[in-house]
């Protein structure tokens, strides 16, 4: 069947992220596996970028991150490290964007017709972005990308405890700032 990734569920073991067999398959050159990794990790990458760069830049930068990930996938020695690795690429790409970003943004037909974002959403996004880095990233993955705490932990390589703390403290700070 075309465009359907199939691999034995038994390949995934309890002590490694569920995407690890996909990483190994992608490293062996399986294009469908990389497509599946994109589908699994695009939200994480987007959330990390959204915490750092203007919203209109994020979709293109997600593509850049996966292009870079693909080109360097062979350098990843431990497939289990993929979640933290791809998250680091996203953070570095955001930093790189700020280093190279033009002072003015050209308004094109494409950017001009983007659907408007509710002003309150923009305000809340900016408030989250003003929080410490660890909190804003975790909160955006939870509140914007709709991921659960355990899912965030698995897809970023962070521990459950770290994600719990980041969510708890981040939400507390956000409530205070919004009140």
């Amino acid at each position, binding site marked *: 069947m*075309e465009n359907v990734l199939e691999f034995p569920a038994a390949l995934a073991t309890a002590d490694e992220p569920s995407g690890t067999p996909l990483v190994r398959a992608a490293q062996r050159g399986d*294009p469908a596996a990389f497509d599946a990794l994109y589908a699994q990790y695009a939200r994480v990458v*987007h959330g990390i970028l959204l915490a750092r760069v203007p919203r209109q830049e994020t979709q293109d930068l997600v593509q850049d991150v996966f292009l870079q990930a*693909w080109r360097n996938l062979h350098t990843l020695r431990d497939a289990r490290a993929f979640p933290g690795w791809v998250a680091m690429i996203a953070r570095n790409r955001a930093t790189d964007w700020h280093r190279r970003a033009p002072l003015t943004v050209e308004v094109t037909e494409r950017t001009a017709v983007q659907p408007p974002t509710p002003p309150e959403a923009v305000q*809340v996004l900016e408030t989250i972005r003003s929080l410490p880095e660890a909190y804003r990233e975790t909160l955006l993955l939870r509140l914007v990308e709709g991921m659960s705490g355990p899912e965030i932990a698995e897809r970023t390589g962070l521990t459950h405890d770290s994600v719990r703390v980041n969510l708890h403290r981040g939400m507390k700070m956000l409530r205070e700032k919004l009140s």
Partner: protein
Amino acid sequence: MSDYLWDKSGAVDPEVERLEQLLAPLAHRPSKPKPAWSFRPLLAVAAALVAIVGTAAALLYPIGTATQGALWAVEPLMGAPRVTGTAVETDGGSRARVELGVIGFVDLEPGSRLRLVRRTASEHRVALDAGTLHARIWAPPRLFVVDTPSAAAVDLGCAYTLRVEPGGGSLVEVTSGWVAFEAKGRESFIPAGAACRTHPEKGPGVPWYVDAPERLKSSIDGAANGDVTALAALLEAARARDGVTLWHLLRHGSEASRGTVYARLAALAPPPAGVTREGVLAGDRRQLDAWWDTLGLGEAGWWRLWRAAAPR
């Protein structure tokens, strides 16, 4: 901490739920399965498109077959591009983006025509009949192929601009990664920062770095066709970085010229142990690959590995 914030279980936290709903429009929008290529006009040009295609139903217009899957979509970037059958066309005042599912996208410049050839799990293949496209592909190498009238441009994981010229030739300029031009039993490998032409009769030409000396660039066609004067000018102007050009001349240049090219490339980038003049002039692929590996362009074996590994 509420369970709802952690794993969405337990009693709903009203403030968290409100923020989820408020911020949801900012989330990543994955490519959704859709019938073959579908036409997704921006709201601003929707009315114009209705007028062009004649019926509002055409605004969601499948232009492939079921076997081609459901992952490609066409989005106008400017003006009113047309979708006809399995082709996307832009006139002088329109541009379009063709989204290739999760593997990347292609932007069509004005005056272009792109056709869907086939899409399978192992190959996304289109044909650029005319005009210019900008491709940004993050799929595994060799998954995305663009046919042009004179050669196939095979993506090796990259971003590039491809133009079909009026005489049937093509020009590719690579900004990231690699592209391979393939036709008539010839291959050229074009790295980031380089460009290459294909010719309707001869197929892929010899690539050059866009920052190469003008004298080198203007001599390439002549040198590849056996013009001794052009070859001398090219070799004299070549820098160490232009090893990619000289290496391709060893493969594509006239037999008579290969000895001269060998000498110049050896001066700029001495061949590694095991690579001999005789072997290179005889076209020994293993020796040519070994020399390539010393040029700082990445190892030659990887694209061949991909070719072998990719399901056909």
